[in-house]
């Protein structure tokens, strides 16, 4: 009833389709492993790795001081050694209770001898001294970091 060649061709079609599916899945998984940046160069990830102890010039204790926040007292500060995640919800270490904050909003992480502020693709943006952070920006003492109505000051 059915020609063997036709059956073989049907299986060829199916096998090719599945090989194609496997190829796309592998590509997608690799894309996930690279991280949200895709083919982009991420200066923070490219630095020595997350846990590498970084020598931020001897005797310096980087801190993040609260200037204005709903859920933190003004003047309180966070230790920045090793970096911090800022966002509306856990697992952020600095919880920004602000309608303009994203769940994972921004990150402060050391790279080389400096701390960098990086916006994690937040919807409303992170502002450094009044200008929106595009990628990662180097932090200097006295810098103002603003998320919505919440403001912090970077100190060393």
């Amino acid at each position, binding site marked *: 009833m*059915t*020609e063997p*060649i*036709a*059956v073989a*061709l*049907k299986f*060829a*079609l*199916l096998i*090719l*389709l*599945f*090989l*194609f*599916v496997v*190829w*796309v*899945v592998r*590509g*997608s998984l690799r*894309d996930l492993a690279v991280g*949200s940046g*895709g*083919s*982009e*160069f991420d200066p923070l990830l490219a630095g020595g790795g997350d846990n590498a102890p970084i020598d931020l010039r001897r005797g310096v204790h980087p801190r993040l001081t609260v200037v204005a926040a709903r859920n933190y007292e003004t003047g309180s500060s966070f230790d920045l050694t090793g970096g911090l995640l800022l966002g509306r919800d856990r697992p952020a270490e600095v919880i920004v209770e602000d*309608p*303009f904050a994203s*769940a994972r909003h921004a990150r402060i992480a050391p790279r080389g001898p400096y701390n960098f502020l990086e916006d994690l*693709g937040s*919807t*409303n943006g992170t502002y450094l001294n009044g200008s929106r952070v*595009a*990628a990662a920006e180097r932090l200097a003492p006295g810098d103002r970091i603003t998320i919505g109505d919440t403001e912090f000051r970077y100190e060393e």
Partner: protein
Amino acid sequence: MTSARNRELFGLLPIALAVSAGFAAVLIARDAEVNDATLTYGAAFLVLCLIGHLFIRVRLPNADAYLYPVAAALAGMGIVMVYRIDPELAREQAQWFVLGLAAFAAATLLLRDLSVLERYRYTIAAGALLLLILPRVTGGVTNGAYLQIDLGPIAFQPAELAKIAVVIFIAAYLADTRELMVTYERRVLGVSLPPLRHFGPMLVVWAFAMMLLVFIRDLGSSVMFFGGFLALLYVATGRLSYVVIGLAMFVFGFMFFEATVGHVGARVDAWLDPLNPDLYYAVGGSGQIAQGMFAQADGGALGAGLGEALLTSGGTPVLPAAQTDLIYAVVVNELGFVGAIALLLLYLLFVERGLKTAMLASDPFAKLLATGLTAVFALQVFVIVGGVTRVIPLTGVTLPFVSYGGSSIVANFILVALLMIVSDQARRPRDEGGVL
């Protein structure tokens, strides 16, 4: 970035081979000689895909590598299946495929900057409304629904293009207002409600979906539009309560019209009891659903083989609308469970790439646009596959890229073009980002 394009190019090869194998199998089943024609079809398909690929290489060098090959795989499977059902329709489908690629190329050439779409949101929304109302004014009734505009020899289904226009409008609107909606929300009985001023548009979209249901009688599109809107609302505000309210509103409206509008009620009855003889033999009754189920069961695990499905018996069609609504049943009949899985995996991967694109986009409008387009695409697949497999009432929307239908192919190629433009902007290396 060129590696993405090379991957895309590589992905087109197995698809062209699969399409050639499919054509050859169909021809053998027809007792025709496998002549050069088969290879010509496969080669022509490959050449067309390569032309599209060259446009991407020039205009969108950083775009996602997989969206285009997956779309090509779906379109290739579609052409093989339509060719198996009716070679004459396949010729038309091939012409529409070329037109679709032309629309794709035109979109990549004209829309370098998506903010144009954001700026003309109201014009686009008005156009979408006009497109949806036109068939009610001019066109005829197809299966109890007003779906087509007849332009001389071509019947055009405006809902396909309108779905893109509606997503553009909602994405642009929410990109502006979502912050206000969240900031000024109130809690009533433990449920957060957006302020009435910004809740208004939600009511408008709901009324619009209900209008589709009643006046255009297009249940499938109504689910697609409203579902896409709720997905966007959720992504824009992060409030699950809005989605719950929206769903409740839709279900309420649907139940009301199910009881009062005959067309909607008949669809539900046919869905609940397709083997009831009264419904089975009724005009526009459950015969189509029942035959679709028989066809799928007949496929078994590995399928009856291309060209083996029983589509007509003694000159009368066994499977009504086999080339459009029920094409999924034909695929399952001929390629079996395995083939159905392959097809659904292709759709799943397309949606995965679409959402990945949305996650990478940094501009709020682009992010919402990619989310909305992907959501509408996924919902369309759900509405028709769910209808054919009797998960939900069967309503006539096309299976994207696979069903026979010109407006569907063209509209979906535009959808892919928009996703790839978003993807290209999102994946552009940062040091070039400033030069737009």
